[in-house]
């Protein structure tokens, strides 16, 4: 549990391309994600938590802004030194991502099964038939009673919860070392949220995948995470084990967030 699988030092994201109006939306963020843990990245909208995730995945286009870091290490690999072609092999295989809105991750013109099987073909080199079987196996592991039907469905034919489970199946298909989940259940109903988070954490636990779980919901932090980073104005203001964070928040901002979540007025 104690070896960092992902090590980030002084990560900054500047939007606006160096002009006078440019702003540091992520400002010197450092943290370690340990093997197999669920680490929460908590904060309000605009605090930089999603931009942190995008920067880790190399998804901030150069036209939009610049990403700098002293270290961005996945296992033994320094991601900063790798060319885009190497990063592309890592994304989806070693590090994968689940976004808030599953429709952004699914292509509307392809059946769900094709898209899921594609992950196995591309990253694991499986043939058509083997990839199909692997897709079926993966769909049943995210709780689909009839995986064949889901394979044949287009994204618009599935409910929001079903779509997100397909996306999770895609993200976990290669048993990645790291899964970055950005508000994965914020668009879902509360009963669906409970299903999806249970499946996500079970799958990750079985595969030994560490999760960076980005959320604004302190209930999710308390119930599903081991440690938490609290982010505000682009910086990490507090880092603590979840139990410790809830027992005695060190930063006044964390205390305000907790008070608001518990029903008081911050």
């Amino acid at each position, binding site marked *: 549990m104690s070896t960092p699988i992902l090590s980030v030092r002084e990560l900054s994201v500047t939007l606006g391309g160096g002009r006078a109006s440019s702003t540091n939306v992520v400002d010197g963020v450092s943290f370690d994600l340990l093997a197999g843990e669920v680490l929460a990245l908590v904060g*309000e*909208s605009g605090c930089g938590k999603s931009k942190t995730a995008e920067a880790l995945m190399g998804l901030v286009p150069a036209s939009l802004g610049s990403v700098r870091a002293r270290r961005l290490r996945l296992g033994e690999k320094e991601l900063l030194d790798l060319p885009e072609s190497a990063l592309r092999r890592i994304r989806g295989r070693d590090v994968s991502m689940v976004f808030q809105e599953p429709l952004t991750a699914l292509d509307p013109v392809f059946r769900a099964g094709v898209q899921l099987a594609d992950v196995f073909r591309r990253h694991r080199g499986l043939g058509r038939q083997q990839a199909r079987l692997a897709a079926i196996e993966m769909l049943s592991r995210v709780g689909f009673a009839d995986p064949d039907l889901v394979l044949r469905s287009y994204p618009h034919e599935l*409910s*929001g*919860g*079903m779509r997100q489970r397909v996306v999770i199946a895609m993200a976990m298909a290669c048993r990645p070392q790291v899964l970055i989940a950005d508000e994965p259940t914020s668009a879902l*109903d*509360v*009963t*669906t*949220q*409970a*299903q999806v*988070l*249970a499946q996500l954490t079970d799958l990750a636990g079985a595969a030994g995948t560490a999760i960076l779980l980005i959320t*604004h*919901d*302190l*209930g*999710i*932090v*308390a*119930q*599903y995470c081991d440690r938490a980073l609290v982010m505000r104005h682009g910086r990490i203001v507090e880092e603590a084990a*979840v*139990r410790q964070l*809830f027992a005695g928040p060190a930063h006044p901002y964390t205390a*305000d*967030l*907790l008070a*608001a*979540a*518990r*029903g*008081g*007025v*911050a």
Partner: protein
Amino acid sequence: MTGATGQLLSVRHLVVRYDASGSRRQSLTAVRNVSLDIAPGRIQALVGESGSGKTSLARAILRLLPIASGQVLFRGQDMATMDRRQLRTTRRSIQAVFQDPLASLSPRRNVMQALLEPLDHFRIGLAAEREQRALGALETVGLDAGLRHRYPHELSGGQRQRVSLARALVTEPDLIIADEPVSSLDVPVQARIIELIRELRDRLGLSFLFVSHDLSVVRRLADDVAVMYLGQLVETGPAANLLGQPAHPYTRCLLASIPVPDPDHAPPSVVAGEAPSALTPPGGCVFHMRCPERIARCAAEMPEETRASAPGTDHRVRCHLWNR
């Protein structure tokens, strides 16, 4: 003045249908025989998951959707039989606040223009007084008068929702229908808007129909709660009773699904399955397919509404377990 029953708004056996245009002519019943009362000065929450029909019910009350059958009575009078003048007065008394203030505020109008529009439309007060009223509404929602020349994009999410509330308040309504008014806001901002809504109830005696999918929000402000599933109200009652001793298995499932912000609390429990499509609703009880407590009768027969608490509290449930 309220109707003979003392209710501000009474919904009676309301049905809302959509024509589902597809291969065959088919209709979807979004609201199925719903009856609900809102008393003066009460915050009535309407809780349900997406597709449960809660927004359709709210929009039908606002007459933004046609009613297939049933009635909406305001102060005891059926809105369908009101003449133009009465309807105009009633519309002034029932105002709405929606989830996304950026979608409901015009990007080309500043705060003052947004607040003046309902006053001009209903010709409330002399033109010269209208600005004073608008400023008064801003003050009521806790916004600085200095913001009156700002445009929506120059305001924060919380400020925009306060402007939406202020715009609803300028006509001095009795009832505000608020559809997910805090769902797009961050938690600390949510908490302050919730506080404001309670204050408006206490200070102005306003009633709210507060539509929400979020039971942790509802728990903080509702006087009464109605739980909707697949177009039907499965449980209604005072918040303390309904949330304290939930009678319907679906209400219990909803409550148990919420992750509690306390690491020592039991983790959320998982309910099997998903809500069936409203196009093909199941027979019997609407929830029987997912219900962990179902008995043989549940698939066969739709349960009648039954009293769930001691006489004296109006806590009602539609469940065979209460009617054996």
